[in-house]
C-alpha cells in the first residue's frame, strides 16, 4: 500500500546541546521504503530519530509523518508510528503477552485484533515458549525482541528503530530482519540506524550517511558508489571514505 505522502519529511531539523547535535537536517523517506541511517558515534542519528519519535523537542525545523505535522499534532503522528531503541524498555513484572496487550491498549487497538496479532508476532520472533513468563529473567536479546514485537503490535505505518540488532544472536537477528523485511513488503516504512553496515547494505532500499549532525550522502548503494567515484567497493569502504572527508572538512 503505497502512499502519495512521504512517510517522513524533515526540514531544517536542529538540536543543540553544548554543541550542535543535529544541524539543519533535511531528510525525506518515502512510504514503503527501508531506509538505513548510518554514521559514526555522536553523529546525531539517535538525536534525529528521537526528535522524529516525539521524545525530544527540536530547537528548529519541522517533522511530518505521512503529512501529519508531528510538532503540531503529536498524538496523530504517534498513532501511526513506532519507536524501538537499542536499550530494551519493557516491564520486568509483565509477561511478553501482557506487555503486548498493554502496548495495544495504549494505542487503542481492539483486543480481538491485538491478541492474535501479539501471539503471532511473539511466535515469529521465537518467543512462543516464553509467552507467559515474566520478562525479569530474559536476556538482552529476548527483551529486544519483546520490545520489537510491542512496537509492531499496533500495526504502525512507520517503524523507527535505533540499533535494533545490538545484542542479538545470529538466529534472533535473522528473525528480526525477516520480520522487518515482511513489514516493508506489506507496505510499511522502516527507518533504522545501525553500525552493522552489512545489514544496511543488504536490507536497505536507500542509505543516508550522517556526520556532525548533517546528511553527507544519501541514495541506493549504487548511487552512493557512483556519487563517490568508487566502482565496486563495499558500503564499509564508502562509509569510511565519506566520514574521513567530513572529518577533514571539519
Amino acid at each position, binding site marked *: 500500500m503505497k502512499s502519495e505522502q512521504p512517510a517522513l519529511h524533515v526540514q531544517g531539523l536542529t538540536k543543540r546541546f553544548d554543541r550542535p547535535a543535529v544541524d539543519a537536517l533535511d531528510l525525506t523517506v518515502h512510504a514503503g521504503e527501508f531506509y538505513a541511517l548510518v554514521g559514526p558515534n555522536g553523529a546525531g542519528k539517535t538525536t534525529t530519530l528521537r526528535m522524529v519519535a516525539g521524545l525530544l*523537542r527540536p530547537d528548529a525545523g519541522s517533522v511530518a509523518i505521512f503529512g501529519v505535522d508531528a510538532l503540531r499534532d503529536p498524538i496523530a503522528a504517534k498513532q501511526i508510528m513506532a*519507536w524501538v531503541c537499542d536499550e530494551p524498555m519493557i516491564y520486568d513484572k509483565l*509477561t511478553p503477552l*501482557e506487555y503486548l496487550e*498493554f502496548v495495544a*491498549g495504549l*494505542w487503542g487497538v481492539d483486543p480481538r485484533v491485538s491478541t492474535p496479532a501479539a501471539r503471532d508476532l511473539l511466535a515469529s520472533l521465537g518467543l512462543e515458549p516464553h509467552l507467559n*513468563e*515474566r520478562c525479569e529473567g530474559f536476556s538482552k536479546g529476548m527483551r529486544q525482541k519483546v520490545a520489537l514485537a*510491542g512496537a509492531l503490535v499496533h500495526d504502525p505505518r512507520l517503524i523507527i528503530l535505533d540499533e535494533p540488532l545490538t545484542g542479538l544472536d545470529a538466529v534472533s537477528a535473522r528473525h528480526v530482519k525477516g520480520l522487518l523485511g515482511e513489514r516493508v513488503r506489506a507496505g510499511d516504512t522502516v527507518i533504522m540506524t545501525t553500525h552493522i553496515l552489512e545489514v544496511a547494505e543488504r536490507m536497505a532500499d536507500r542509505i543516508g550517511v550522517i556526520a556532525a549532525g548533517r546528511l553527507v550522502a544519501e541514495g541506493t548503494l549504487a548511487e552512493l558508489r557512483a556519487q563517490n567515484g568508487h566502482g565496486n567497493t563495499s558500503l564499509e569502504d564508502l562509509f569510511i571514505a565519506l566520514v574521513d572527508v567530513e572529518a577533514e572538512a571539519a
Partner: protein
Amino acid sequence: MSAATTLSWFARHELKLAWREWLAMMTGGRRGRKRAAAIGLVAFAALMHLPAYAVIGRFANLQPPLDKTSLIVLTSTILLAWALMLSQAIESVTRVFYARADLDLIMSSPAKLTNIFSVRIAAIAVMVTGMALLFSTPFVDVLVLNGGARWLAGFGVVVVIGSSAAAFAIAITILLFRLIGPARTRLIAQILAAIIGAGFVIALQIAAILSYGTLSRFAVLTSDAAAAFVPDADSLIWWPARAALGDIQPLLFLLSASLVLLGCVMAIFSPRFADTAIVASAQAITSRRGSRALAFRGGSRQQALRRKEFLLLKRDPWLISQTLMQLLYLVPPALLLWRSFSDSSAAIVLITPVVVMAAGQLSGGLAWLTISGEDAADLVATAPLSPSAVLRAKIEVVLIVIGAIFAPLIVALALASPLQAAVTACGVTIGAASATAIQLWFRVQARRSQFRRRQTSSRLATFAEAFSSIGWAATSALALSLPAGAAVSGLITAAIVAATWKLSPRRG
C-alpha cells in the same frame, strides 16, 4: 599477594566503595557539592542537638543504681535501637546477596572467597555501626555535656548494638536461605526487616492501648505491672543499661561478647556466604510464570496505563515490603479506634495525625513509583496520548490506592466521631495531594528498582514531602483541639508547599 595483603587491600576497596556511595547519597551524585554537603551535614548535626536535648536532656543526671522503672525505660530504648539496627542490617545483607554488581567479578577471581566475604561481613557491621554512631552522637553529646564524661560509654553500647545486630542479621538471612530457599528469602527478609524495625514500637503501643487506652508506649514501661514482672536490679538483663550509664565491667563484657559473636558468625558463615550469593544470583535470572494476559483487554488508553500500574505494584513484593513499614504504623490507631467503641476515650483524637501522616508518606512513595519510576518511559512517551493524560492516569492510581487503604479507616472513624472523620478525610486528601504534587514537580526519569534511592534525586523534594506530611498531620490534629492553631499550622504548611512549587525545576 599474601592472604593478609589481600584482606587489607579488599577491606580498603570495600571502605572506598562505601564512602563513595555515602558521598553520592549526600551530594545527590553531583560533583562540586561536597562542600555544601559537609556544611549541611554539620548544620544538621548541630540542629539535631536541640531535639536530642528535648528528648533526653532530663535523663543526663541519672545515677546508678537505678530503680526498676528507669532500668526498664533505658533497656527498652536500647532494645528499640537494636531492633532498628537489625532491620537495617538485614536490608544490607539482602542487598549484598541480590545485587550482582561485583559478585561475578569477585567469584571469578583467584582470591580466597572465605576471606573476601569475611571482609564484606565486617563491612556490613562497620556500616551499620557507623550510621548508628552518626545518629546517636547528638544524644550522647547532650548526655555528656549535662551529665559528665561517664556517658561516653554510650558510644561503646552503640558499637555493641551495631556489631551484634550485624551478626544476627547475617545469621538470620543465611538460615532463611537454607530453610525457605532463595526465591522467598528476599521477600521474607525484607518484610522481616520492616516488621522488626517498626514492630517493637508498635508492640509497645498495642500493649499500651490494650492496657491503658493510650498510644503512649511509656504507659506500659513505667507501669507498676511492668516493674513487678521484670527481674531484680542485679540481673544480667540490665547490663546494657548499666553499660550505657558508664559501668565499665558490663561495658567491657558486652563489647567483647558482641565482637566474639561477630567473629563467630564470620567464621561460620563466610564460607557459606559465597554459596548463598551464587544461589541468589542464579535465582535472580530464572523466570517466573505470570497469569494469562487478561488485564489489558478492553477499556481506554488511560485504563491500560492504570491497570499496568496496579499490576506492577501487585507483582512487586519488594516494593510492597518497602511501603509496609508506613502501613504498619496504622495498626495501633486502628486498634485504638476499635477499643474506643467500647469506652469513649479522648485518646482517639491521636488517630487523626497518625493517619494523615501515613497517607502523606504513602502517597509520596506511590507517586514516585508511578510518575518517576516508569521503566518504559520511551514507550509511554511515544504512545498516542497527551503527556497530561498520562500524568492524570498515574495520579489517579495513587489516589485510588490511598482511597482504598484509608477509606475503611475513615468510615470506621465516622461511626465513632463524624466530625473527626471529616477532618481526617480532609487531612488525608490534602496530605496525599501535596505529597503527590511534590513528586510531580520534581519528577525524574528513573527505574522502579531505584525506589530506595529516590531521595537522592532531590533533597528539597524529600524534605518538602516530609514537612508537608508533618504539617498537614499537625493541622488536622489542631483542627480537632485548637482551631485557631490549625489555621496557623495550615497556612505555614501551605506556604511550604507553595515555596516548594516555586523552587521546583521549570518544565517547557
